[in-house]
């Protein structure tokens, strides 16, 4: 089953240190609405998106512009559609629970002249297969991943964790083994909005419960 754990868990991306939050006014959505005019909302969203270097949550945007999350979401979706219809080189995408500007893929050959010094490294097959198991079975232990793949996965798990594609999330109650889940960076890397975008494995997986017992 695909879980949404980790996606909703925005806490992990949020600052842990209290120093910023403590000094901030608790809620600014009402007392400071003058900051963005209704007519200026779209422009404000564009300006914010222009300065982020990781996908930004609707919540963070909503706080900054002083509008509700629902409204912000609608505006972002409409903006993404407008860009697409205009065949803009800017592709606004919802990725890993947040929004970010990307170049539209058909312009990759042109963009690469300005961005790349070399080839970006692709994930290995072992990495992709392990990610596949983790993505669908999370949280999942190393032993279970190894059982599904039929090979030892210690090395590949360590690499995936170091590359920020998976993270530890506690211990298995029964075996005590470390549990792993995919990260938002994984979603970003795959260009997925959320784990729910993944196709259902059910039809392909008869008797998955039997396999769990391996």
């Amino acid at each position: 089953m695909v879980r949404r754990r980790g996606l909703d868990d925005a806490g992990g991306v949020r600052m842990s240190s209290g120093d910023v939050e403590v000094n901030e006014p608790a809620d600014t959505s009402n007392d400071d609405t003058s900051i963005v005019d209704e007519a200026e909302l779209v422009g404000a969203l564009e300006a914010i998106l222009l300065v982020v270097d990781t996908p930004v949550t609707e919540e963070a945007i909503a706080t900054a512009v002083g509008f509700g999350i629902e409204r912000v979401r609608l505006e972002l979706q409409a903006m993404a559609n407008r860009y697409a219809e205009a065949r803009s080189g800017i592709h606004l995408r919802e990725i890993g629970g947040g929004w970010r500007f990307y170049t539209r893929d058909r312009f990759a050959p042109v963009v690469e002249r300005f961005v790349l010094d070399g080839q970006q490294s692709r994930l290995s097959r072992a990495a992709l297969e392990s990610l596949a198991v983790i993505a669908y079975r999370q949280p999942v232990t190393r032993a279970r991943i190894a059982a599904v793949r039929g090979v030892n996965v210690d090395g590949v798990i360590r690499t995936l964790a170091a590359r920020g594609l998976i993270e530890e999330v506690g211990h298995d109650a029964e075996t005590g083994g470390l549990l792993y889940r995919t990260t938002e960076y994984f979603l970003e890397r795959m260009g997925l909005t959320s784990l729910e975008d993944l196709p259902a494995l059910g039809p392909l997986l008869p008797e998955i419960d039997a396999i769990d017992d391996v």
Partner: protein
Amino acid sequence: MTVAPAAASAVADAAVPGPTSKSFRIQLDNFEGPFDLLLQLISQHRMDVTEVALHSVTDEFISHLRALGNDWDLGQVTEFLVVAATLLDLKAARLLPDADVEDEADLALLEARDLLFARLLAYRAYQQVAGLFRELEASALRRYPRAVTLEARYLGLLPEVTIGLSPAAFAEVAASVFRPKPPPPTVSLAHLHSSQVSVAEHTAAIREILIARGSATFAELILGCTVTLEVVARFLGLLNLYRDAAVLFDQPEPLGELVVHWSGDAAWTTPAGSG
């Protein structure tokens, strides 16, 4: 040449690369464990993944395993051995005349088969997902995110940076960057094909011994074998011959010494013998 029974010829086809099966000898990609190897073998034969397909590639599977044997550490080989054992059990069971599923051993075997089959299908499903991930990644890599320095006017407003990693985790990040990128999987396995354990060949070897001597104990039949898999192949060969009524078994008591008598035509020949 005598026409061999269908089952025996199927075994021989799987075991010996005859002229027709030569086209299947496409070089295998580097494989990622036993299930991957099984799937690759099955797909080489253009078969659907079924129970039948499973054991029809038993010999090839084992030949790969054998060739890998010495260089691999136990941890890597164990799963291969488990799969190989199940495959051999299945194949052996199929070769027995009217195998009924009444005794416990048969039931256990059926369970093992179902489990292997389920694991194989599960692995295949995840492999398909991995294929999807590869496409998604390739697609995502074509879309470059905006990642520029914050304009100077906002820089002073940034909160203190959080690295968010322990020194050990930070070192792991460094290691993952420095670690050589995985080379494209191009390890050739062509050299493995010369060292197959062929059930058909071992069947032929048993036949020769028995025709010459009339009878032999199982211990005598496996005298020349140097590795366990060859013993297994001889055992399967024996079942082959038994199924074809070319041999008779004489075992006075359970677990006692097994004496094998040749009962077939001296001209009886396996397809492997002719090739």
